[in-house]
C-alpha cells in the first residue's frame, strides 16, 4: 500500500487502495489536530500556492490551515486580486508562479480540466480544489473519511446523494469514491438536475425522494448551485424545498441511525431544515474538521510522490 502520484487531479483515476491510503494517512493527521501542538515539520521549506480563481472560503481556509500545520510557506491568489483580471492566461499566471520556485499549486477553477492542464505544463505538484462541474477530490475524500469513521466501513453501505447532481463536482467525486470503495450510491433530485446518464457512473438514479432516503445509511445533501445554472432548472427554491428538502416529515421515513452530511455552505430551509442541520444525526461540522486532516494527508502523500522513488526500508 503506497502512493506514487505527484498530483491529485481527480478521484476517477484513483484505485480503491489509493483512496484507502489517503484515508488511513488522514487518521494520523486528525490526531495531530487534537494535540496541544498541532504542527508537524513535514513540508518545512516547501512553498504552496493557493490559486483560487473561483470564490471559495471554506475550502481555501481548510487548505491554508492544512498547509500551515505541515509547516509549508503559503502564497494566496484569488480571482479578484490576480492578473487574470488583466487578461493574463492561466498558463502565464502559473508559469510566473513557478518562476518563484514553488512546490505545490492548489487550484480552484470554474473550468473543468484546469488542474489537469496545469499538471501538464508545470513541474509543481497540482492539487485540484474543485474544477467546474468536474471533480472536487478532497471533498469526496473527507466525505468517505467521515462515513468510514462514523459507520466503520463503506462496503455495502447505502448512500443517497440528494440535490443538484448535474452541476455538482462534489457529487461526481463522491460517486467515484463511494462506488470504488463498495458503497451503493443513489442519486436523487429534480429530473432536470439528476439525469439518467449518471447511471453510467455505477449509481442508481431516482426522482422519488421518499424512496431514495427510506433505506439510506447516509444522506448527503447538496446545495442548489444557483451560480452554475444558466437558466432555472426548477420553478424556485420554495418548490425545491417542499419537493426535495429534508424536513421532519421526511426524516421520519429514514433509518433511525441515518447520518446526514452536507459539504456546505448550507441553505437552511432549502435543502435541509434548520433543526435537522443542528441535530445529532448531522455530521456537518465533523466534515469540516476531517477536511483538514484529509488535506494534510493529501499534501503529505503528494510530496512523497514527487521525488526519486526510493522505497523505504
Amino acid at each position, binding site marked *: 500500500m503506497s502512493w*506514487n502520484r505527484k498530483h491529485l487531479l481527480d478521484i476517477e483515476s484513483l484505485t480503491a487502495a489509493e483512496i484507502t491510503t489517503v484515508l488511513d*494517512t488522514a487518521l494520523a493527521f486528525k490526531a495531530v489536530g487534537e494535540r496541544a501542538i498541532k504542527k*508537524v515539520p*513535514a*513540508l518545512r521549506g516547501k512553498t504552496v500556492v493557493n490559486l483560487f480563481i473561483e470564490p471559495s472560503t471554506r475550502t481555501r481556509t481548510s487548505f491554508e490551515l492544512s498547509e500551515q500545520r505541515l509547516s509549508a510557506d503559503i502564497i494566496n491568489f484569488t480571482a479578484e486580486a490576480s492578473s487574470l483580471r488583466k487578461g493574463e492566461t492561466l498558463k502565464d499566471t502559473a508559469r510566473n508562479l513557478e518562476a518563484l520556485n514553488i512546490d505545490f499549486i492548489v487550484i480552484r477553477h470554474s473550468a473543468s480540466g484546469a488542474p489537469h492542464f496545469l499538471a501538464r505544463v508545470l513541474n509543481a505538484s497540482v492539487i485540484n480544489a474543485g474544477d467546474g462541474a468536474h471533480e472536487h477530490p478532497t471533498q469526496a475524500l473527507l466525505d468517505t473519511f467521515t462515513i468510514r469513521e462514523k459507520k466503520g466501513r463503506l462496503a455495502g453501505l447505502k448512500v443517497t446523494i440528494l440535490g443538484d447532481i448535474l452541476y455538482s463536482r462534489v457529487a461526481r467525486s463522491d460517486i467515484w469514491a463511494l462506488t470504488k470503495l463498495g458503497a451503493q450510491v443513489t442519486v436523487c433530485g429534480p429530473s432536470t438536475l439528476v439525469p439518467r446518464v449518471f447511471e453510467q457512473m455505477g449509481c442508481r438514479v431516482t426522482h422519488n425522494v421518499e424512496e431514495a432516503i427510506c433505506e439510506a445509511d447516509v444522506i448527503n445533501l447538496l446545495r442548489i448551485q444557483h451560480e452554475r445554472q444558466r437558466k432555472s432548472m426548477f420553478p424556485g427554491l420554495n418548490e425545491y424545498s417542499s419537493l426535495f428538502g429534508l424536513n421532519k416529515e421526511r426524516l421520519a421515513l429514514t433509518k433511525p441511525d441515518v447520518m446526514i452530511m452536507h459539504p456546505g455552505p448550507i441553505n437552511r430551509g432549502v435543502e435541509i431544515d434548520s433543526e435537522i442541520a443542528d441535530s445529532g444525526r448531522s455530521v456537518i461540522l465533523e466534515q469540516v474538521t476531517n477536511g483538514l486532516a484529509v488535506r494534510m494527508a493529501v499534501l*503529505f502523500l503528494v510530496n512523497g*510522490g514527487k521525488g526519486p522513488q526510493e522505497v523505504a526500508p
Partner: protein
Amino acid sequence: MPDPTLILNAPTLQRALTRIAHEIAERNEAGSEVVLVGIQRGGVPLAERLGALLTEIWGRAVATGRLDVSMHRDDLDRRVAPQVQPTVIPFDVTGKTVVLVDDVLFSGRTVRAAMDALNDFGRPRRIQLAVLIDRGHRELPIKADFVGKNVPTARAESVRVRLAETGGADEVVLEKPV
C-alpha cells in the same frame, strides 16, 4: 539469496530484553517516573514487553506509548511517503524519564525524528534510548543507552526482527544483499 544468519532466537531475544529491563531499572531508581515509548512499528511490541518486565521488577504499572515519526523524517521529499501509523501517548511526558524503544539502531535518523516528535508532546525530564540490535553505521551523533546485542554489519545487509506479536516466532536474522 544466501541463507540469512541467525542473530537471536526466541530464548536469547527474551534474555536480551530481560537484561535491558534490569539495566533500565538499575539506571533509574524506582521513584523516578519512567515511561516507555515504542517507535512505530518495530519498537512498539518491544516497548510493551519491556513495560511488562519493568512492571514486574518495580511492582507497579509502567506506562507505555507508541510514536510514529513519519511526519518528522528528514527524507520526505526523496522517497515515497511512508505509511503513517498511529501515535498514542496516553500520559503527559513533561517531567518524566522517557525510554524510547526501537528494534534496530542504524543511521540514527529515526531516533532524531522521534526526539523531535516527542517534544511536541511536552518536555521530558530526560530521554533514554533502548534498542534490541545496534548494527552500527551511525550518521548522527546518537548512541543507545541500552542495547540487546551489538551486531557488526555491512551497510548493504539488512537486519530483520520478527516478533510473535506480528506473527511467527521471535527471531533476529541478518540478511545478505541479493
